[in-house]
């Protein structure tokens, strides 16, 4: 690691340890346009020489440290998988895109039948693609979120207050996710999307309920959370949303999560074997989620390069799937759009 930016001692040691275990280099970069959650660009996913952790330029202190810690844990999992076996992600093919989009279409038709105001075909087609992509993104990210959070919490007690702020911020964003599509998405998928995040929040509430996670009450905007510890914040806010019905599905997803994650000793010393085991558990847990959500045919486990190629061909895959489903109608629709 080579950086001119100040780093707190525990994070500096954690980054060095990650580099040593994986025998790789990590560069830390500030970027004004970086995602608020930071971005990990790693050698196990991309054909690059060293790993880069990007974070927003205005994160100069502990917010930056937390992002670095979490991405280091994720890097360790990916690296251990690549070194001990194979690092695979949930990718897609033309065939799996068809399976996914077709299933969403069938469910959309069921919902549409009950609606007085029908969804225009253009919007329906748009929704099929957006929803499929969204689930692909979520299934690749969400299972690793409670894992990285739990590990950081147990190994980095110094940054727990920062972690609390992040959990609140991230949880809020995830609750709001897809709200703009609320009226056009089949209810089943909306509930499943919310249920995944509900389960994540409940799991973290159970796993990280320490007293030191009391909010930083000197911040005016956080005063409303005074006297609430993290468990209460993560659980009660779900009861205040219209998506509380996600609870039924969410509780099942939580059970699946606990079934796999209870096997992990969060305080164990870092090693390739340890993170490889976590990777395998993460994959098994992801498969269980996919199976529970009846999305078995939607995705395929492949190396990251396969996913990058698939993403480049996504429009082609989606078009093919839509043609199979709508036949001539989609050609007319495309022609209308071109003329319009």
């Amino acid at each position, binding site marked *: 690691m080579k950086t001119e930016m*100040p780093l*707190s001692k525990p994070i500096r040691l954690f980054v060095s340890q990650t580099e040593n275990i994986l025998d790789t280099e990590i560069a830390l970069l500030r970027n004004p346009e970086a995602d608020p959650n930071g971005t990990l660009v790693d050698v196990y996913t991309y054909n690059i020489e060293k790993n880069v952790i990007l974070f927003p330029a205005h*994160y100069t*202190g*502990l*917010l930056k440290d937390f992002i670095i810690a979490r991405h280091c844990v994720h890097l360790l999992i990916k690296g251990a998988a690549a070194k001990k076996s194979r690092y695979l992600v949930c990718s897609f093919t033309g065939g799996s895109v068809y399976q996914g989009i077709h299933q969403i279409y069938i469910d959309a038709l069921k919902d549409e039948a009950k609606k007085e105001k029908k969804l225009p075909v253009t919007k329906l087609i748009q929704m099929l693609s957006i929803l499929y992509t969204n689930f692909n993104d979520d299934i690749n990210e969400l299972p690793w979120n409670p894992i990285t959070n739990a590990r950081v919490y147990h190994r980095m007690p110094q940054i727990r207050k920062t972690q609390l702020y992040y959990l609140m911020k991230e949880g809020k964003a995830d609750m709001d996710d897809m709200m703009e599509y609320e009226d056009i998405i089949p209810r089943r998928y909306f509930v499943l999307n919310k249920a995944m995040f509900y389960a994540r929040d409940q799991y973290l509430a159970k796993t990280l309920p320490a007293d030191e996670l009391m909010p*930083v009450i000197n*911040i005016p905007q956080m005063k409303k959370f005074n006297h609430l510890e993290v468990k209460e914040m993560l659980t009660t806010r779900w009861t205040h949303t219209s998506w509380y019905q996600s609870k039924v599905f969410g509780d099942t997803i939580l059970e699946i999560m606990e079934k796999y994650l209870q096997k992990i000793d969060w305080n164990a010393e870092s090693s390739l074997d340890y993170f490889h085991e976590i990777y395998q558990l993460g994959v098994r847990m992801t498969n269980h989620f996919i199976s529970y959500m009846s999305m078995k045919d939607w995705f395929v486990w492949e190396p990251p390069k396969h996913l990058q190629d698939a993403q480049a061909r996504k429009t082609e895959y989606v078009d093919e799937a839509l043609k199979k489903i709508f036949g001539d109608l989609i050609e007319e629709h495309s022609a209308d759009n071109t003329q319009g």
Partner: protein
Amino acid sequence: MTVKEAEELIRKGRAYASRTKYKEAIAYYERALALDPSNPSGWYHRAAVFIETGRNTEALADCERAISLNQNYSDAWSKKGHALYNLERYEEAVVACTRALALNGNDASAWYIKGVCLDELGRNIEAQEAYGKSLELEIILDMEAEKKKIGR
């Protein structure tokens, strides 16, 4: 006129620095400093670029020059703390950051560097206090940034 020209050159230098074009930024700052060496801002901004490029001893010298021109230049004190931290002169960095914070208590970065240095010196309780203050300020800044984004 020279003063205005120098300020314009500093502004251009900052634009380059924000795009990590440090070589160009330094060239502009040097032209500004040649025109008006009594402007502490030129020294401060060149110090910032020196830090980004690992030239910490030169950064420290520039910060000291900026401070000699304006003793109450809080950003220059903060940057001096950063340069001293990079040079592993932790005690002196704590002093510089403390001075920066006496002038501007809302400098999240100065609180953080102070915390990091205190941590390095084994003064853990004081370090936690500084980290706590830094986090509060960072969160406020982050919330403001989020609000701006929503407003855009």
